[in-house]
């Protein structure tokens, strides 16, 4: 690149290559779900017509599904259908999969967003403290807390939490999004139960929902805290040894200002990436948490579809979470590039 390139042109190039990367990744994702759904040894025709169908019926459905066409053509049709928002019909709910997914997604988003907030609010200061008191007792303590979060099976922690805090102590409400007699009272506006009930002035329901989501939120928060505090620690450790920190100390800045104002500000850029990535991890972690807490989100939908052998729904859900995941990855990449002056 010796010839001077116009800055605007460079930005357009950058965006184009980025879009290409996103497109290829999404295509690969679709190829994977297509592969899982079509090529693996389950017979989609049998699933629809049942074991006892006559050969004529079988043949008709076989042709309807387009299974006689070459594989690449089937894949092409699959892609165009997805692009039109057609994920097929769910056998168990008999609704289009997309409708179901949009129905359940806000609840998942609500839970994982709150979990992430908790993880950031606690995890970042913990990581900072851990790096500041490197190899002293706060560091050891925080690392052990994080290590436990890494090692514990989250679904088991959910069960134990239910047993202790719901059954024994009665501090929180049990599984589900609301108490049974509150279900369906609030009109669905945004899909988030907290926002909907607050907007409609149903404060009793609002607090009931909070009491139901406290435990799953704390668990998801802990799950992301383990990762966030660990990454914050390593980023901060790196920053605190830099020379500008020494300079700031020498010119007499207070310790608080050195750590929070100088080091953390520089650490913030990689941390944004870490947080975006852990959001993706939370979406996945919520699959198991939702099944434990009967939370009406995507995870629970995928879980119950699995047992109805409803592959359209399972693959649609996987695809949706995968797409969100890919976009979070890409977003973290873009944020990193735009926030860090050195990478511009």
């Amino acid at each position, binding site marked *: 690149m010796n010839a001077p390139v116009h800055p605007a042109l460079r930005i357009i190039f950058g965006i184009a290559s980025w879009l290409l990367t996103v497109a290829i990744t999404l295509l690969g994702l679709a190829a*994977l779900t297509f592969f899982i759904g079509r090529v693996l040894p389950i017979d989609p025709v049998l699933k629809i017509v049942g074991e006892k169908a006559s050969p004529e019926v079988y043949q008709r459905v076989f042709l309807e599904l387009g299974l006689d066409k070459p594989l690449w053509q089937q894949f092409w049709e699959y892609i165009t259908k997805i692009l039109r928002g057609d994920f097929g019909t769910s056998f168990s709910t008999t609704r289009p999969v997309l409708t179901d997914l949009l129905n359940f997604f806000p609840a998942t988003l609500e839970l994982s967003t709150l979990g992430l907030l908790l993880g950031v609010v606690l995890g970042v200061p913990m990581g900072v403290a851990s790096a500041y008191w490197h190899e002293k007792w706060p560091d050891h303590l925080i690392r052990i807390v994080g290590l436990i979060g890494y090692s514990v*099976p989250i679904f088991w922690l959910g069960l134990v939490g239910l047993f202790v805090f719901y059954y024994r102590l009665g501090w929180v409400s049990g599984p589900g999004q609301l108490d049974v007699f509150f279900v369906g009272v609030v009109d669905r506006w945004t899909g988030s139960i907290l926002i909907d009930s607050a907007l409609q002035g149903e404060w009793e329901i609002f607090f009931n929902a909070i009491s139901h989501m406290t435990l799953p939120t704390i668990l998801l928060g802990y799950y992301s805290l383990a990762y966030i505090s660990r990454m914050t620690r390593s980023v901060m450790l790196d920053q605190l040894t830099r020379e500008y920190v020494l300079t700031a100390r020498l010119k007499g800045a207070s310790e608080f200002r050195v750590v929070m104002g100088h080091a953390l500000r520089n650490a913030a850029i990689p941390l944004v990436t870490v947080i975006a990535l852990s959001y993706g991890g939370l979406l996945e972690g919520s699959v198991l948490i939702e099944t434990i807490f009967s939370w009406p989100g995507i995870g629970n939908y995928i879980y119950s579809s699995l047992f109805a052998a409803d592959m359209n729904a399972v693959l649609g859900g996987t695809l949706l979470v995968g797409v969100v995941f890919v976009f979070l990855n890409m977003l973290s990449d873009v944020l990193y590039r735009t926030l860090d002056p050195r990478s511009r």
Partner: protein
Amino acid sequence: MSVIADPIIDPKRALRAARIAEFKSFARRFARNPLGMVGLIIVIALLVCAALAPILATHDPYLPALSDRLAAPGAEYWFGADELGRDIYSRIIFGSRLTLLIVALVIVTSAPVGLVIGAIAGNYGGWVDRIFMRITDVFLAIPKLLLALAFVAALGPGIVNAALAITLTAWPPYARLARAEALIVRNSDYVNAIRLAGASDFHIIVYHIMPMCLSSVIVRMTFDMAGIILTAAGLGFIGLGAQPPLPEWGAMISTGRKFIFDQWWVATVPGFAIFIVSLGFNLLGDAMRDLLDPHLRQRR
């Protein structure tokens, strides 16, 4: 080995002596890390449990005793009995074999696959590199548990299928690692020298690139084992891993879920087993990284 071999007269013996000395200093530094030792002890205990399961177990892990259904922990059943009156302690002891089996299956398949793909991509560069790394990125960009879940759902539940599905999600980090090392090694003088001497790409990849990746791969593997155990337990919990009556820990939690409020031990005890074992691998991985990671090692 008190006599130091002359490296010119007896190079093999000198090499061996150097390796033993290296290992001794490694062991000494490892022993200074208390958390790492705890991890090592946990992992060794797991291996002992798996090897001596028939001796350590007090009951038959499969034999129901309906009169003792859901018996509380006590002298007869140390950790209580499950819904068919089977001893939970014995089932956990035998379950360690399944855990090790899954971990071993995933590791022996995913690490070599990732290594080969990464080493080839890094060694050849160009479009081979681009295609392989794009595939790797696609797999990295997909949530692991979900991919494994969808895959097992299509293949049918079972322990081998679960391991296969986890493998599918576990190889990309190894490919990344191997590629990064290969890119460095590819242009180093000794590889150029051996290439001029007529070594094939195959020879370079197998004898020069892959050994360079080993220490980072070992660290990565130890960490991965904890993750594999958790994913396998998650699949078992959902009902897609090992099938009853196999005493897989995740599946045991899943059956105990129904009794969580009144007979808490049925679900709680297997969870402890998963937790402790994956904690052990994480602690061990931490310690190994501190010792083996070339970047960290230089800093000390």
